[in-house]
């Protein structure tokens, strides 16, 4: 683990963007998340690590209520964003998801042009008053997604025609276009080759300036490279949460240590 690039750790701004209290998730009879409490900070990259099936993706999907689309899934406990309970009856998941964007494991561009892919979110949320504004948003988002230079000459080509890494950056740009405050990333690099991964990781580090980023990853190296905070999940429990450097070098819990040294997972 010596090859880990230690990113600068200007953490602990003190602002808690997301607060989870006693969160429990049931899938039918399965108890997938057991009593998770966590505070996620603004303008920080937080990594969720842990073995497969430990519930890290499930928890991530609770933060923008993507689990609502699954019939048998039941969430209890409180998740607060900026102090507001997102599971409150008054909350419309549609508004919430505009505020909490999400990037998925496999790049999933819509079968539309690159331009329409990006413009989709702003259009449904009514962020642009006219075509010029929309053009501006599209360009800005593609620049933020670090893909502008590659696609600016073919904005009306289909998004599905891009390479895997480009598609994933397109999806990140698409998520950014709705001006979210939080970006959730569910193993965004697992379907990408190392070069594309490096590009996306670099992008994530950039995104930290504007957003609170939560990333689920399988790769401990990746967590160490991009995140400032790390949470280790095991069998539905949040085992340990803290500074990334501390988790990787000096874990408190023996389970964390076993995982990091490769004995479980």
């Amino acid at each position, binding site marked *: 683990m010596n090859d880990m690039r230690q990113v600068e750790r200007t953490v602990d701004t003190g602002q808690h963007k997301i607060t989870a209290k006693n969160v429990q998730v049931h899938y039918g009879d399965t108890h997938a998340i057991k009593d998770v409490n966590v505070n996620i900070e603004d303008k920080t990259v937080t990594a969720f690590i842990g073995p497969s099936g430990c519930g890290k993706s499930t928890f991530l999907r609770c933060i923008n209520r993507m689990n609502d689309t699954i019939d048998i899934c039941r969430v209890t406990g409180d998740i607060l964003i*900026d102090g507001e309970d997102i599971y409150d009856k008054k909350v419309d998941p*549609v*508004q919430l998801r505009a505020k909490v964007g999400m990037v998925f494991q496999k790049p999933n561009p819509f079968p539309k042009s690159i331009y329409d892919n990006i413009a989709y979110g702003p259009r449904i949320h009514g962020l642009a008053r006219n075509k010029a504004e929309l053009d501006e948003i599209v360009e800005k988002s593609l*620049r933020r997604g670090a893909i502008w*230079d590659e696609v600016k000459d073919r904005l009306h080509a289909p998004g599905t025609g891009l390479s895997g890494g480009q598609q994933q950056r397109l999806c990140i740009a698409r998520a950014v276009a709705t001006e979210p*405050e939080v970006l959730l990333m569910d193993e965004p690099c697992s379907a990408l080759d190392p070069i594309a991964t490096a590009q996306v990781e670099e992008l994530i580090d*950039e995104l930290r300036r*504007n957003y609170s980023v939560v990333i689920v990853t399988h790769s401990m190296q990746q967590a160490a490279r991009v995140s400032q905070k790390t949470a280790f999940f095991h069998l539905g429990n949040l085992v340990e949460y803290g500074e990334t450097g501390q988790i990787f070098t000096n874990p408190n819990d023996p389970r964390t240590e076993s995982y990091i040294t490769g004995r479980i997972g």
Partner: protein
Amino acid sequence: MTDTLSQTPDAPRKSASLHTQDARTKKRNAAEARFKFYGLTAIAIGLFFLVVLAVSIVRSGLPAFTQAVVNVEFTLTKEQFDDAESQLFKTKAYSGFFNAALVERLEASGIETEFDEKAVERILGKTGGTIREYFRENQGELGSPVAFSLATSSRVDGYLKGRVTRENMEDSRFLQRADLDLVDDLQAAGILKQAFNWNFITGADSGVDNPGGAGIGASVVGSFFMMLVVLFLSLPIGVAASIYLEEFAPQNRFTDLIEVNISNLAAVPSIVFGILGLAVFIQFMHLPQSAPLVGGLVLTLMTLPTIIISTRASLKAVPPSIRDAALGLGASKMQAVFHHVLPLAMPGILTGTIIGLAQALGETAPLLLIGMVGFVARGYPDGFVAGFTEPNSAMPAQIYTWAARADVGFYEKAWGGIIVLLLFLLTMNIIAIILRRRFERRW
């Protein structure tokens, strides 16, 4: 990456509280609700049509299963019998006895009415003949009371079922308005009742002017023989073809040709199969017109693609590990298929076959062209072989024939025929579902 780095970290847009819905979200949610409502409406319309269809079938068809009959019990003495037999107009004498008994019954119920013999004849047909026939054959019954149950004419039946009313009918030699008073009296006295019309279930088609006597029995037999042909041709041929395509066929032009043909035949309109039957089986091979054999052959060709497609699906559902296991023990490919794969796929094949048969049973258009409609099936076939080769009708063809006749009395029969046809289809589909439930295997 220079483009991102050059940007100033601008703050995200000012966040509004999640606990209040902005105007746009309200509008979007309204659109959402509307859209969902359209979907629900579409389902409701579909189900509504189903209900309307079911109600109109049942409402219009059930009367076909009942018929108004006049029940009169009377005693004929030996003397009366001898007297009647010695007269010149024998049946008229019997009618006289019957009418006397009728008057007696009416008076016993406290109803007094005036009627002449002609009216009774218009309502019940020639009663004397039936009675004479009965007593000539059962002379032992003379002197003891005998109950007669006589069917009313189709117009009277129509009056009781509301099809014929005093307003819309015209006096004719078949029925006059005045006769309806007598019908009402008979009904009030409990002499005229609705009874189950067994003749409709067991009988054969009547002529074009006698809707009352028409029955669906003969055409059920015709359909049965047709289905026998379809079953015994399409099941073996369909299974053999599927086995070849699924298990043995090499990837080549010929196989592709067969596949393309099957998928296209499945979508060819049924009337085209009728043309094929007419041109090939009747014009070229001179097989008998209107025969269930020809109908069965045409329906076989029509059903084959359906059966092949479902059989292939069930063969495909048998996992390759079963084949590998058999081949690994030294069985030949043919043995592996016939000993292991086919038995495992059998429930699925049978289910598909039954559904294919049900489809064939309800098919009408091809039967029109091979002459099953012009033919009036007046009786049952004489024997098993004759059942295939003698002209007969089939259920859907019979229904069409009735629907196309001018006398509205036949409409009721057509709806009744549909109930019988749908009961058969329902039974077949339920059997298929049970088969699937019971033997369904999940690998």
